[in-house]
C-alpha cells in the first residue's frame, strides 16, 4: 500500500477532532440507552430468514445458494463455509446467530460485542472519527465482521456495516457479495429482551433489501469460560455447538 505524506498528515489532523459521542464519558459507560449486559439468542436458529416471505434471491444469488446446499449435502464445508470447516469468524451478521452468550460493552464511544463462541468480538464505532492512518494497509482487505459505524436514534442503536468478506455467509447457507450493506437496529424491547432488526442489502444477491428480526434474552452476569474453537475442530466436534 502506498501512503502519501499528505494522506498521513490529513488523517493525523483528523484525529484532532474528537466527536463528542462518548468522548466525555472517559472509561465510564456512555449515557443511556444502555444495552450492556450478558445476552443469549432467545430461539436458537441456524438460518436468517426474512420476516415477510422467502429470501428474494437474484438469479445469481439463487444459483450460489443452491450450490451451497449441494456442498453441504456432500460435506464439502470448506468449499463454502469456512466457519464450519476452519473455525473462521462467522462475521456479520452470522455471529449474532451463535447459540452461546455474548456480552455488550459500551465504552469510549465504541460498542463491543464479546462473544462466548471462540472469544470472537465485533465492534460498532460511534465516535464519528475520520479514518486513522493505515500504515499496515488493513483497509485493503475485507474482514469477516466488516466495518461498523453506528449512531443512536432515540432508544435505538443503528449500525451500518460494510466491507464484509464474501467468504462469510449470512447464516449456514446464504451467500452474499462484499458489496453487501448490513443495517441493524438494536434496542431494548423490554428490560431483559434485546431486539436486532437486521436489514440485508446486496443487489448482486437479492432483488431488494430484506429484513430479519432476532431477539435475545438477558442472562445472569458471568465470566465466560475459555473457548477455543480449533480445539473442538481437532477433536472432530462441531465448530459451532448446537444448543
Amino acid at each position, binding site marked *: 500500500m502506498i501512503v502519501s505524506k499528505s494522506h498521513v498528515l490529513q488523517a493525523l489532523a483528523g*484525529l484532532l477532532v474528537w466527536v463528542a459521542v462518548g468522548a466525555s464519558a472517559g472509561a465510564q459507560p456512555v449515557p443511556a440507552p444502555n444495552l450492556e449486559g450478558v445476552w443469549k439468542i432467545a430461539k436458537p436458529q441456524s438460518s436468517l430468514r426474512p420476516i415477510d416471505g422467502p429470501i428474494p434471491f437474484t438469479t445469481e444469488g439463487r444459483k450460489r445458494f443452491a450450490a451451497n446446499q449441494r456442498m453441504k449435502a456432500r460435506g464439502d464445508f470448506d468449499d463454502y463455509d469456512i466457519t464450519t470447516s476452519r473455525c473462521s469468524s462467522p462475521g456479520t451478521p452470522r455471529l449474532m446467530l451463535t447459540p452461546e452468550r455474548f456480552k455488550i460493552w459500551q465504552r469510549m464511544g465504541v460498542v463491543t460485542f464479546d462473544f462466548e463462541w471462540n472469544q470472537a468480538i465485533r*465492534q460498532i464505532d460511534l465516535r464519528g472519527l475520520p479514518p486513522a492512518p493505515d500504515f499496515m494497509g488493513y483497509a485493503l482487505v475485507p474482514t469477516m465482521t466488516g466495518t461498523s459505524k453506528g449512531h443512536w436514534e432515540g432508544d435505538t442503536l443503528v449500525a451500518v456495516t460494510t466491507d464484509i468478506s464474501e467468504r462469510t455467509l449470512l447464516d449456514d447457507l446464504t451467500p452474499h457479495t462484499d458489496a453487501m450493506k448490513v443495517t441493524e437496529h438494536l434496542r431494548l424491547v423490554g428490560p431483559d429482551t434485546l431486539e436486532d432488526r437486521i436489514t440485508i442489502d446486496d443487489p448482486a444477491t437479492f432483488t431488494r433489501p430484506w429484513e430479519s428480526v432476532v431477539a435475545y434474552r438477558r442472562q445472569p452476569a458471568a*465470566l465466560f469460560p475459555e473457548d477455543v474453537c480449533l480445539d473442538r475442530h481437532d477433536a472432530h466436534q462441531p465448530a459451532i455447538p448446537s444448543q
Partner: protein
Amino acid sequence: MRADIAGLGRLKGLVLTGAAALSVVAAGAFAQTPPPGAPPQSAPEGGPPSQFGPPPPPPLTEAQKLAASLPPPMPGGMPPLPPEPPGAPKPASDPRDLQGAWVHDQNLEFRMQNDMYGRPIPYTMEGAEVLARRVRSLNAGKPFINASSKCRPPGVEWQRDLNMPFQIFQSKDWIEFIFEEYHGRWRVLMNPDSAPAPAARDYMGRSVGHWDGSTLVVETTDMKQGVYLDTDGTPLSHDGKITSRIRKVDNGDGHPFLEIVSTFEDPRYYTHPWSVVRTFGWTPSLAVFHEYNCEEQIGDPSTPPDPGLIPEPQD
C-alpha cells in the same frame, strides 16, 4: 515486589552516588565497572578496591553462559502510535479503575535477556537448554510450533507484550482484559468463588487478583501447557507462576500509562524468581480493534498445516 522496587531505588541511588563521585574523582573505578554478568575484575594493581560504585556482579553460571552464548535476538520495534487528540477520553481518576484502551508502548523484546534491574536471567541448565534449542532452531529457519503458530492463546506475558491494543472491563467480581490479537482474554478473578475452576486447565491459566493499595496483584497459575514468554521462546513451564503487579500512573504529563511488573517463578527453568517491567500507554483511539482471524489461514487446505514450523522435541 515492594522490596524489589525499593531495591531499584537503592540501585539508582548508588548510580547517582557513583556519578557524583566521578565528578570529583579523576579516575574512579566506577567508570570501569564491568557489564552485568561479566567476570569480576580484580582491584587495580598496587591499590585497594575502589569504595565507589556497586559491587561487581556475581560470575555467570554455566546456564547463564549458555544463554549468553546464543546469537542476539532481533532488535525490537513497534509500529507508530497515533497521537491522542485533545478532548479524547481520559482514564478514570480512581486508581483502582483500570478500564479503557491500552497498548504496550515500548519496543517489543524478542528475547528477554535481563531482568528489570539489568541482571541476567537466572536460568537453570534445563531452562537455558530449552531456550538454546529454540533459538538455534529458529536461526536455522526451522522454528518450533508454538501456541501462537497454532492460533492458540499464547499466555499472559506474550499476549500483553505484543504492541497490539487491549481493553479492560471491570466489575466487582472480575476484571477482563480483551485483546486485539489471538481472541485474547485475560480473566482475573477478584472473587474466586464467582467462577468455579474449570474441569481442565486453560491456555491462559487461572488468574486470581487482589488490590494492594492502588496496585492490582494477579497470580496466574495452572496453565494448560508451557508458554513462550516472548517470540524467541524464553520458557515458562505449565506449572510456572506469573505474578503481575499493575498500577495506573498519571504524572500529569498527558501520557497516562499502566505499569505492569511481571514476576516469573518456575523452579524447573529458573533458580529464583525474576521480574520484567512494561508500560502500556492510554490509547482510546485504538479502542476499535483490527480483526484477528487466524483460523482462516491455518485451516487452509491449500497450504501446509504448519508452514515451515516443526514440532519441538519434548524433554
